[in-house]
């Protein structure tokens, strides 16, 4: 690998991207508009029912759990339930066996459910939690940023390579001492820089307005984002490794991106989805990027906690990059 050639191609590609104002604008404003729109749509009071977590719900005899307009959700242990209570995903938690209940002091719903509960049971120990509410915009943030990264990685690499191939830029580069490895690696690094720069700008900029929820480490979030970007770029390189037709690559990239849009947990959780759908979603890099980032943001997970997603992204990147490099064609042969 000749570093002089490698860095020259990275620099040229970055210049090309940042001078293309229409593409730059789209990459910058699309996620901001999505976040603003969703924040507006979901800015109401939300669902009217209360959500109460109950430890070992199936063993509870109390008539309180039959109260109408209240959802009672079973938990096996209270650590996850209290985290949900802190995040306002639950309004109240009851452990009938230990005769304890938890309220979130910052939640009006929690106060109301407590009043209802004390009307039937007044011999329980009161425990308190505090925490900022996770809004939908906080939950959907990793999904939207991930989706934007996905489009930037797939189309920014795949489409550009096919365009280069079609209009003979690749052929001209092949006539120089530049190797395929140097070219492909430079595309990868250039796109990682672009994607991470754009995502950071969007995140930091939007954070001034939305004050995003963040329980985990920004370093961990950055690392999982880079791993996701590498994986998505490698997928883009693989899809574009041989095609010479912009129409075909457009179709292939749509075929690749739409399942991820729908099934990678960008908009909604797949917890209740059929098992086959979950298995398929697990094969998509965006699933692991979004799930990993979401756990870091909403649950304060570390890289060890999300090692499954980290490993999945590393394996996908290795496979796609190896296959993409093996299949890569300058395609000058007619």
């Amino acid at each position, binding site marked *: 690998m000749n570093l*002089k*050639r490698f*860095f*020259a*191609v990275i*620099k*040229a*590609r970055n*210049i*090309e991207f940042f*001078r*293309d104002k229409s593409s730059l604008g789209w990459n910058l404003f699309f996620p901001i508009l999505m976040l603003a729109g969703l924040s507006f749509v979901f800015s109401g009071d939300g669902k009217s029912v209360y959500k109460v977590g109950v430890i070992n719900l199936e063993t509870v005899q109390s008539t309180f759990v039959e109260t109408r307009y209240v959802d009672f959700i079973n938990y096996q242990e209270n650590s996850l339930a209290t985290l949900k209570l802190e995040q306002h995903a639950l309004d109240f938690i009851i452990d009938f066996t230990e005769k304890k209940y938890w309220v979130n002091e910052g939640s009006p719903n929690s106060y109301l459910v407590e009043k209802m509960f004390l009307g039937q049971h007044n011999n329980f120990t009161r425990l308190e939690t505090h925490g900022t509410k996770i809004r939908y915009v906080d939950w959907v943030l990793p999904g939207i940023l991930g989706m934007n990264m996905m489009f930037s990685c797939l189309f920014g690499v795949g489409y550009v390579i096919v365009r*280069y191939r079609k*209009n*003979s*830029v690749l*052929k*001209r580069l*092949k*006539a*120089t*001492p*530049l190797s395929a490895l140097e070219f492909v690696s430079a595309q990868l690094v250039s796109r990682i820089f672009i994607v991470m720069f754009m995502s950071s700008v969007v995140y930091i900029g939007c954070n001034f307005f939305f004050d995003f929820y963040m329980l985990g480490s920004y370093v961990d979030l950055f690392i999982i984002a880079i791993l996701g970007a590498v994986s998505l770029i490698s997928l883009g390189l693989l899809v574009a490794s041989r095609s010479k037709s912009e129409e075909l690559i457009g179709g292939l990239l749509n075929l690749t991106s739409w399942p991820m849009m729908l099934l990678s947990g960008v908009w909604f959780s797949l917890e209740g989805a059929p098992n086959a759908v979950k298995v398929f979603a697990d094969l998509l890099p965006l699933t692991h990027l979004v799930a990993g980032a979401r756990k870091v943001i909403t649950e304060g997970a570390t890289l060890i906690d999300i090692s499954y997603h980290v490993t999945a992204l590393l394996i996908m990147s290795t496979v796609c990059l190896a296959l993409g490099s093996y299949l890569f064609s300058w395609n*000058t*042969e*007619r």
Partner: protein
Amino acid sequence: MKLVQVPSDESTQYVIEVKDLVKSYKGVQAVDDISFAISKGHCFGLLGPNGAGKTTTIEIMEGIIKATSGQVLYSGKSIGKDISQQIGIQFQSTALQDFLTVKETLNLFSSFYDNTLPHEELIELCDLKDFLDRDNRLLSGGQRQRLLLALALINDPEIIFLDEPTTGLDPQARRNFWQLIKNIKAQNKTVILTTHYMDEAEQLCDNVVIMDRGKIIESGTPNQLLAKHFKNVYIYLPKEQVPQELIDKNQWCIENGRVEITTQKVEEIISLLIAEQVSLDGLQVKSPNLDDLFLKLTGHSLRE
């Protein structure tokens, strides 16, 4: 092996030898068993109509595509991995990276090579000074070709391949480009040129090979080939200036409103016209060119 011996001042010093080259695509024989050799410091022309196999031949010589069979030797050796460090290439149609300026494009390509010409020298040689900071997308056809030529010369190669370098240029831009190529030749560099413009070949090439349907149909210097195949020149006069009985008597032709006289003896014909008191206003004398030669050899024009 059918090696066409191209005349050369240094008959044994070939920088490139092409031997028994064959390239087949699905059902198409693009290059059909051709051989030729190129001497150092010469401008060598591969001529032929579109689809003759010129570009395929030149791209095999450049190491861009692989031959089905046959050999290309550089100073007696097969094409090595480092060939791209030693040759310069201008393709027939190449896009450049959008949004980069001419100067940035030169910097990018310079980074690919171990040894490069100083940019000042390239800018001077290819006359790039006036549009160095212009975006590649905004270059005119002539400026673009000059930049592509600069990229072909950036590693100071001894051998330069130019594939249809002036296609699409206006006459003035073409002549300017020819001058650039003459300047390169003056540095004793070997130039391999494909073209279907015969005036271009006659202006620039020391030796030519004429191809049609993948085969070499003739080779030699332009003058040798014309002398070999044509003895006559053409004299043209406006039809209304020549009496009809004179035309009929000498069996001259009428072509596009002009009288066409085919002869080996120009002086005799001029004397005859003067004797018959025919006005010589608008008289044209034309020698056959390579286009005429190609038409004679194949029965169809080079531009078909």
